[in-house]
């Protein structure tokens, strides 16, 4: 059987897990990354979200074999992913949305924030100045049990403002 290779946060990784293993368990157990989190295993909540070739995907429902040869970006890799998009000389410590969430002191338990940041980053990459309605529509598939939606909405707009001056 051919080796299963996946590019994870810009590093090629050879995957040993069974090919039908959900990507989430590969990230957690084999690659020991802490960004994606188990929430429902049903694709309903968004806590396991990652970017696959820049598009948000639920890693709990994505077989690792299906991302063979593709590029997976997790929460840990978002600052570098952002730097590539914006042609920055080096990756910042945090993606502007991560910084904005800190500035808003938005989170409570923070468990859902993997998905919030991954999805919000995807949105801002596609639409750098979204309206409030566009943000809500884009984020609607991501749940927060602690009820921090108002601060996430503010943080996404804050990040959009911060990203305005950044060259591409």
């Amino acid at each position, binding site marked *: 059987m051919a080796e299963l290779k996946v590019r994870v946060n810009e590093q090629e990784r050879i995957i040993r*897990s*069974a090919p*039908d*293993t*959900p990507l989430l*368990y590969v990230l*957690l*157990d084999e690659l*020991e*990354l*802490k*960004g994606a*989190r*188990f*929430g*429902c*295993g*049903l694709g*309903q*909540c968004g*806590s396991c979200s990652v970017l696959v070739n820049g598009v948000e995907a639920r890693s709990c429902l994505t077989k690792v074999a299906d991302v063979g040869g593709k590029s997976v970006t*997790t*929460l*840990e890799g978002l600052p570098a992913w952002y730097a590539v998009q914006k042609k920055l000389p080096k990756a910042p*410590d*945090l993606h502007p949305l*991560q910084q904005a*969430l*800190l500035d808003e*002191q938005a*989170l*409570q*338990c*923070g*468990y*859902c*924030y*993997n998905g919030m*940041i991954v999805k919000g980053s995807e949105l801002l990459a596609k639409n750098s100045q979204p309206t409030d309605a566009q*943000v*809500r*529509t884009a*984020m*609607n598939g*991501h*749940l*927060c*049990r*602690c*009820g*921090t*939606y*108002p*601060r*996430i*909405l503010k943080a996404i707009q804050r990040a959009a403002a911060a990203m305005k001056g950044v060259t591409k």
Partner: protein
Amino acid sequence: MSTRREFLKTGGALVIGFGLSENILGQSSAQPPTPRGSVPGPPDARQIDTWLAIHSDNTTTLYIGYAELGQGNSTALTQIAAEELDLDLSQIKLVGLDTNVTPNQGGTYSSASIARGGPQVRTAAAEARFALLKMAASRFGVPQENLSVVKGVVTSGSGAASRSVTYGELIGGKLFNLPFANSAPVKATADYKIVGKPAVRRDMTEKISGNYTYIQYVRVPGMLHGRVVRPRGQGAYGTVAKVLSVDESSIAGIGGARVIRNGDFIGVVAETEWDAVRAAQQLKVTWDIKPSLPTSEDLYARMRGAQTQDSFVRQSNTLDAAFKSAAHVASQICHGPYQSHAPFGPNCAIADVKPDSALVMSSTQDIYNLRTGLARILKLNANQVRVQYVEGSGTYGHSCHDDAAQAAVILSQSAGRPVRLQFMRWDEHGWDNYGPAHVGEARVGADANGRIVAYEYHGWQHSWCTTETSDQLAFGTAAAERPGVGAQGINPLTLGSMYDVPNYQLVNHKLPGLEYLKGAWLRSPLDLSLSFASEQAVDQLAYLMKIDPWEFRQRNIKDPRWLGVLNATAQAANWKPRPAAANLSTAKIVTGRGIGVGTHLASYGGAVAEIEVNRETGRVVAKHLYGAIDAGLVVNPGIVEAQITGQLIQTASRMFKEEVTFNTTNVTSLDWNSYPILRFEEAPEVTPIVVQRLNERSSGAGEEVMAAAAAAIANAFFDATRVRMQRFPFTPARVLAALK
């Protein structure tokens, strides 16, 4: 960030027991083992060393017994310690809760961290400062009064003649070995520089960057992955599901997986997580499941007609006469559903059980209580069991954390290896200790001047259930209940006692809990239901008398602190006085506003809701929620604002969306589709208001505005439609039926 590392470093015995390797620790254990952590706790709460350690580099490690659940209590308690010790916040480190390390301050519930834990930490820090100043005074040969402290540097005199010494130089690395002197002065509130002011949460950067170790991530060498196998959704608490047969051949194709059975407790363990998940799904178990429940639709009739244990929580002999003399009387029913904690990450626990010891990591709210329970199950002494707290996702009360810990020890004991037990979404949703359902009947009477003269409330609910599911299944342990007092029954603080009422009666009807779902405390227990009935009845009186509902409440409240939160929210919402339902419209989408007051067992909450009702679809959304809390001295107003924000959004979710559904055999709301919660598109704007009272005792702010917000939403619905809802959540079908 050192919090996690410090936690694991401190637990010397844990490192040995689990054989934690470098990749778990993040670094190898560089420090020599210290006595701290080597003996079972709780350490003596009257010893300074129990609470803090001063290091040579003039930093301090603070040992607190309250769990960080994402509410920010660890930051606020650090502020209290920093204030009393005259340290900068950056000089204080924390360790995780550990029954071998941290003091027993009781469980992290009832909004107790600051209300009860704050004074304990303040006292301990003041005692330490007092002892340190004594050392400095002796070193310099000056009276203590001549010393001042800034950032842990003690200075005597001023200018060229001044001499300084750091805390670290005085005692760094050594133990105080001192009991509390009981004479240590605490700072005057007026001198506070850190307490009462916002400070950033200490745990956020790691959580944002993906470096935080939630319990769901903890991995230990040699561990197996475990899952429980249960019927999908629980039946009645007193009717335990029985196993008829287990077909182990049904998972024969999953090489690494095996079944562990203990009584009616079934679990699987496997080397890989995916094998454990698949095995739990594929394993064929035949259960003997008998009808044991009313359905969620028949629930309220069953509750209202049940044989109950009745008691007066408050009694009035003049109530009937007062109602007879009242000029106006309003009544209101509440049918409040079971609601689920549904933590966003299902509970997880790691256990390593050996013949004579056990190490357990859990997101429990109470490590010492869990230790006792696990010791009983394992037939060990409590001091042979060590429990460490690792944060999971927000729990908002007694979700399945202790059940998961029990399941982990049962699996580990049988497997003879460490086991990481992770609940699946349906386990957590289906086997939760739900916030109990409630039937409430409120009746309130006012005289011709709009003064409330009589108030009566009857409430039906069962108490909290204390036997965890794993314990029931594995050992046949009888289903036990709490006595049904306090927050387990109807609660005067939320029920009308904020008003100046001469004739006041509360009657509690305790249901037989074994016939219903398993219940326990869910954030602001029962309060949403209580205020839904109580505050709608009060609101209805104002309506009957054509009095603005804010004005009506002002007229009937004397307590300045209740008036404070009431007025703060009304003013923030720019409330213009008019009677309710005075602006009715026949448009498709109508708007309404409502006001309410309420709390839990302390503090004061007020709220205003602005909502929209779609009369064609039945969809209700909150557009703006305002909430005020007076919790006395608020240590960190920024964190309390965040707490209010979360409470307002959760209240909207619970009023519009959340309801545990069940048929006669089992719970059927097992995921986020069948148990929906509020989403981004429905999230209102929020205005949190902290009513700061620097000279009042801190009294908790984690759940005290939800009752007010629930009432405000219900009253806003009336304002929009002139219809009083009797049941929540306000689902479209229910709203359309009510508007017919």
